[in-house]
């Protein structure tokens, strides 16, 4: 329960930061620090059990039981150590932050820092590998925002850090997936205890490499080291916590955690030691070259992490002891040093070593802290850093691999320590000793010591290093347990300041001695500072790769980037034809046709279709093209009649008519003729078209009509009357069996209507095309529109009510005879189309019904009938009732009919929308201009494409309003 309590308290802390910030501003750090301190004490109290008795704390609850993922936490020695660091150092940094920032609200900072502490604690306690991954990613995200908090200049560094560590996260995810699939469990302790996979050399190497990528990106190891100095764009408390004590230690934690599985894998040993030592040496040299105090600390962190990674790579119990001690030592001295950087920065206004100097008189406490920490970092007795470095050296000498490997590793480690001494000296000497290099009267020269609240956390951290160095045997139980958890062997460590004269001591002495020499020769690093040792930087390489990837993506996109619809429509067509060709080459094993597929009359339709389609492709006139496609549509309707689909045929007829009506409204706004197309393109597209037609025809012949009636169809034909009370099976499918499909299609229909309205609200319709304008003088017989439409209007007056009644009749009978909502709606829509066609002018034809409301009503009614279905169990399930009629019969009423009414309304609404919206002269919003004045007169004056209009002549615009050409 302690473990759960830890996470809950941290989560509550995160959640309460907005409140704290509101009342306390930057001082929110105090309560948070107090909470962290309390948690540190709580964790410390677990030491007797976890470290003394060696029994880990455990907690487990099901999280995603379907896939076996548990919310399980476990605190063993390793978990204890890292939890202590996260909460303990976190507490110091939070207290420090209250004085680092100027007063004012700091919500983002405190929220993200607490979130980060939460994520880190979860990470080091997670005993479920999926949970571990989740917390791992959470640290990545929190760090991204923490770096990004520092303003626009930090955005690139934040993105670089994020992309890089996210890449490591992906690698970790890969390892997690492989391990879970292989071992069948997500429990981390079970996976690590499972020896069945560690023996498989290939598998274990792949997983080890993936984990290595995760470790290296998170802990800034070569070649991913550059994000850490880059991330110095973040504010100093962030760097002190994330880049010294917490985030970078996540990689160290992961490496330690996986040591039981990989400790004996040579690949793991070699890669970790090699890359770690390269990083250590390189980081140390780069650190010496810095002129910015914070960047110096950053490169020093990279270097120290390199030593840690390398020593974990050694994999022996003694090496893990060294790693544990150095983790503690580094967390203490590096957080203190970063806090010093912040102190100096805030008090003097600069971090530039070329301008600092002589601060020890004016900032004595800071100088003491810096000196103590730097001594620990440089490995000077009696500080903790000395002990950890001794252990590091000792461990490297016993590195696995060939005999020369250990000594070589030791030499490189000493080399890194030489430069560590040099840059530690540079850090302290150039800042606090010598004389100030700033001009008299400048802010640097006038800097004074900060208040005690500001320096106290740094003092605690640095004196912690001294205290632990003096009482180092106290760490024995902790390091023993860590080494045991990581290697499953007892380490039996006896940490001492004085080990007697041994190899490690001589190595330490060599490092210090040569370090001093190097410092002297390089004039405390000034001679190499700022010089480019290599011609490129990690950031440049990253940016080059990053932009290269984006360029590659753009190139790939260029392959299909074209505004021409012909290209986008042609490419898949060609591909389908190619597929068809492949199938044709290999052939298919086909059954013979199940019956007589050709009837004599069919050939008439084939001939009709051939003529219509051929003519439609040849013609250059838009109107002719439309008409010919309409002929093809009617032929399809005839085909449907022939095939026994009367409902469908009726629908097709009506749709054809209405398509032509709507299309004509559009075509009058466009030129008479199609755009010309070059002969070569015609030929090419003709070839594609014929190939496509051939494929489609052959496929249709080969693959259809070769089986008996499907089982579904048989069932529906058998049971439709009993199931639904209807005998028109097609209609029962629409409104009953598959009503949800129909409902979906109804919504699509309605949305199409609304989109038309939306499109025309945002961009106006084209004016009527100039080529279709006809000027008719007033004495011409074609001029008076009212006279010319008298026939149609008279017929329409009687036909219109008849059509409406007929449509209602079709709606009612649809369940049993051909008809139904779709057909009835189309017939009703035709009635309105007739009204429209018969009107003497566009304006007069306006049907003043709220058509969007009709569409909406249709959808709502259909949905309502669907909800009625819940009475009997499910959405859209039809209910049935026999309503007694006056003459003794019963009327069979079903809610499927209500559904069909919805369909009817939606179809009518969409048709009204099309007629009204497209029929208008211009995209005048309905209701804005009165219906008494024709829009053409409203706007005729500013119509550039229209010929001049005389008052005694009117422009008839090729619309459907009669009396035109």
């Amino acid at each position: 329960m302690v473990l759960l309590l830890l996470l809950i308290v941290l989560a509550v802390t995160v959640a309460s930061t907005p409140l704290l910030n509101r009342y306390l501003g930057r001082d929110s750090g105090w309560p948070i620090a107090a909470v962290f301190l309390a948690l540190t004490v709580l964790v410390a109290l677990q030491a007797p059990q976890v470290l003394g008795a060696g029994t880990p704390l455990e907690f487990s609850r099901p999280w995603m039981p379907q896939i076996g993922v548990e919310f399980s936490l476990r605190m063993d020695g390793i978990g204890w150590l890292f939890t202590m660091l996260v909460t303990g150092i976190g507490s110091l940094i939070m207290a420090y932050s209250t004085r680092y920032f100027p007063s004012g609200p700091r919500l983002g900072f405190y929220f993200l820092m607490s979130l980060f502490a939460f994520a880190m604690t979860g990470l080091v306690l997670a005993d479920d590998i999926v949970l571990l991954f989740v917390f791992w990613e959470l640290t990545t995200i929190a760090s991204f925002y923490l770096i990004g908090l520092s303003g626009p200049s930090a955005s690139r560094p934040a993105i670089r850090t994020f992309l890089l560590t996210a890449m490591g996260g992906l690698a970790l995810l890969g390892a997690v997936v492989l391990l879970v699939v292989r071992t069948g469990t997500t429990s981390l302790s079970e996976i690590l205890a499972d020896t069945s996979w560690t023996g498989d050399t290939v598998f274990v190497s792949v997983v080890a490499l993936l984990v290595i990528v995760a470790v290296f990106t998170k802990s800034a190891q070569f070649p991913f080291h550059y994000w850490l100095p880059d991330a110095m764009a973040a504010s100093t408390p962030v760097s002190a916590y994330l880049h010294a004590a917490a985030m970078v230690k996540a990689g160290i934690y992961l490496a330690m955690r996986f040591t039981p599985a990989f400790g004996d894998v040579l690949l793991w040993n070699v890669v970790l030691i090699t890359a770690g030592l390269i990083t250590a040496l390189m980081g140390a040299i780069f650190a010496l070259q810095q002129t910015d105090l914070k960047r110096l600390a950053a490169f020093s962190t990279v270097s120290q992490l390199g030593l840690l990674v390398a020593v974990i790579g050694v994999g022996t119990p003694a090496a893990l002891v060294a790693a544990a001690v150095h983790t503690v030592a580094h967390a203490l001295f590096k957080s203190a040093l970063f806090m010093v950087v912040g102190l100096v920065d805030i008090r003097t206004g600069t971090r530039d070593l070329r301008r600092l100097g002589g601060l020890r008189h004016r900032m004595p406490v800071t100088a003491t802290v810096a000196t103590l920490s730097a001594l620990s970092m440089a490995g000077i007795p009696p500080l903790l850093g000395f002990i950890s470095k001794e252990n590091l050296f000792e461990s490297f000498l016993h590195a696995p691999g060939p005999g020369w490997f250990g000594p070589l590793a030791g030499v490189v480690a000493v080399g890194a320590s030489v430069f560590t001494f040099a840059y530690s000296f540079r850090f302290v000497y150039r800042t606090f000793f010598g004389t100030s290099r700033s001009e008299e009267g400048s802010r640097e020269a006038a800097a004074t010591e900060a208040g005690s609240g500001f320096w106290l956390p740094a003092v605690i951290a640095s004196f912690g290093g001294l205290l632990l160095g003096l009482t180092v045997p106290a760490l024995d139980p902790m390091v023993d347990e860590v080494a045991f958890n990581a290697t499953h062997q007892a380490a039996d460590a006896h940490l001492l300041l004085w080990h007697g004269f041994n190899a490690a001591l001589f190595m330490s002495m060599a490092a210090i001695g040569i370090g001093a020499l190097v410092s002297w020769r390089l004039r405390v690093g000034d001679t190499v500072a700022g010089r480019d040792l290599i011609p490129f930087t990690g950031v440049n390489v990253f940016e080059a790769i990053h932009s290269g990837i984006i360029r590659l993506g753009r190139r790939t996109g260029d392959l299909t980037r074209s505004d021409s619809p012909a290209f986008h429509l042609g490419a898949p067509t060609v591909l389908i034809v190619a597929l068809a060709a492949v199938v044709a080459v290999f052939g298919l094993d086909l059954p013979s046709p199940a019956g007589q597929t050709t009837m004599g009359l069919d050939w008439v339709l084939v001939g009709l279709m051939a003529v219509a389609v051929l003519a439609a492709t040849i013609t250059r006139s838009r109107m002719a093209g439309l008409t010919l496609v309409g002929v093809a549509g009617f032929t399809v309707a005839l085909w449907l009649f022939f095939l026994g689909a009367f409902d469908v045929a009726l629908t097709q007829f009506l749709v054809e008519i209405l398509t032509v009506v709507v299309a004509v409204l559009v075509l009058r706004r466009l030129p008479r003729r199609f755009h010309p197309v070059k002969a070569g393109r015609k030929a090419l597209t003709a070839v594609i078209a014929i190939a496509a037609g051939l494929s489609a025809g052959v496929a249709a012949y080969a693959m259809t009509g070769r089986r008996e009636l499907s089982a579904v169809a048989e069932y529906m034909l058998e049971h439709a009357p009993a199931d639904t009370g209807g005998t028109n099976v097609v209609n029962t499918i629409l409104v009953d069996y598959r009503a949800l499909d129909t409902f979906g299609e109804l919504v699509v229909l309605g949305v199409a209507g609304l989109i038309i309205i939306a499109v025309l609200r945002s961009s106006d319709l084209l004016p009527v095309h100039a080529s279709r304008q006809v000027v008719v003088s007033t004495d011409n017989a074609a001029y008076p529109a009212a006279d010319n439409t008298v026939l149609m209007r008279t017929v329409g007056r009687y036909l219109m009510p008849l059509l409406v009644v007929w449509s209602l009749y079709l709606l009612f009978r649809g369940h049993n005879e051909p008809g139904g909502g779709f057909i009835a709606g189309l017939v009703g829509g035709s009635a309105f189309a007739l009204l429209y066609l018969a009107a003497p002018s566009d304006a007069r034809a306006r049907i003043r019904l709220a058509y969007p409301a009709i569409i909406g009503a249709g959808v709502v009614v259909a949905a309502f009938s669907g909800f009625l279905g819940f009475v009997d169990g499910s959405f859209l399930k039809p209910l049935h009732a026999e309503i007694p009629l006056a003459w003794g019969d019963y009327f069979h009423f079903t809610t499927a009919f209500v559904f069909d009414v919805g369909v009817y309304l939606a179809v009518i609404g969409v048709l009204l929308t099309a007629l009204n919206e497209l029929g208008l002269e211009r995209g005048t919003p309905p209701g804005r201009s009165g219906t008494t004045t024709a829009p053409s007169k409203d706007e005729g004056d500013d119509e550039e494409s229209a010929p001049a209009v005389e008052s005694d002549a009117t422009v008839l615009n090729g619309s459907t309003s009669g009396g035109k050409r």
Partner: protein
Amino acid sequence: MTLAITIGIMVAGGVYLMLQRGMVRIVLGLLLVGHAVNLLIMSAGGVFRRDQPLVGSGTTPFMADPLPQAFVLTAIVIAFSIAIYMLTLAASGSDDDTEDAS
């Protein structure tokens, strides 16, 4: 076979129209291809059964498959709404040309 030929003719014509310039021809081509696909769905039901699926007086052995008919019926209406939407696009904004003048 006759239905297959019809489908072939319509697809050929439709594809040809779709690959030309101008939104209107693309719409016309799409209409043709849409019709062809509807007929293909009908064809899948079996062309040799051509009786109406009205079961008021029992079923007959040559009664057509009702399922493709229901599919096609809704498909026609959907195709219609898409067609009028595309025609709206063709007639709004600027000319319906889909390519730079060449």
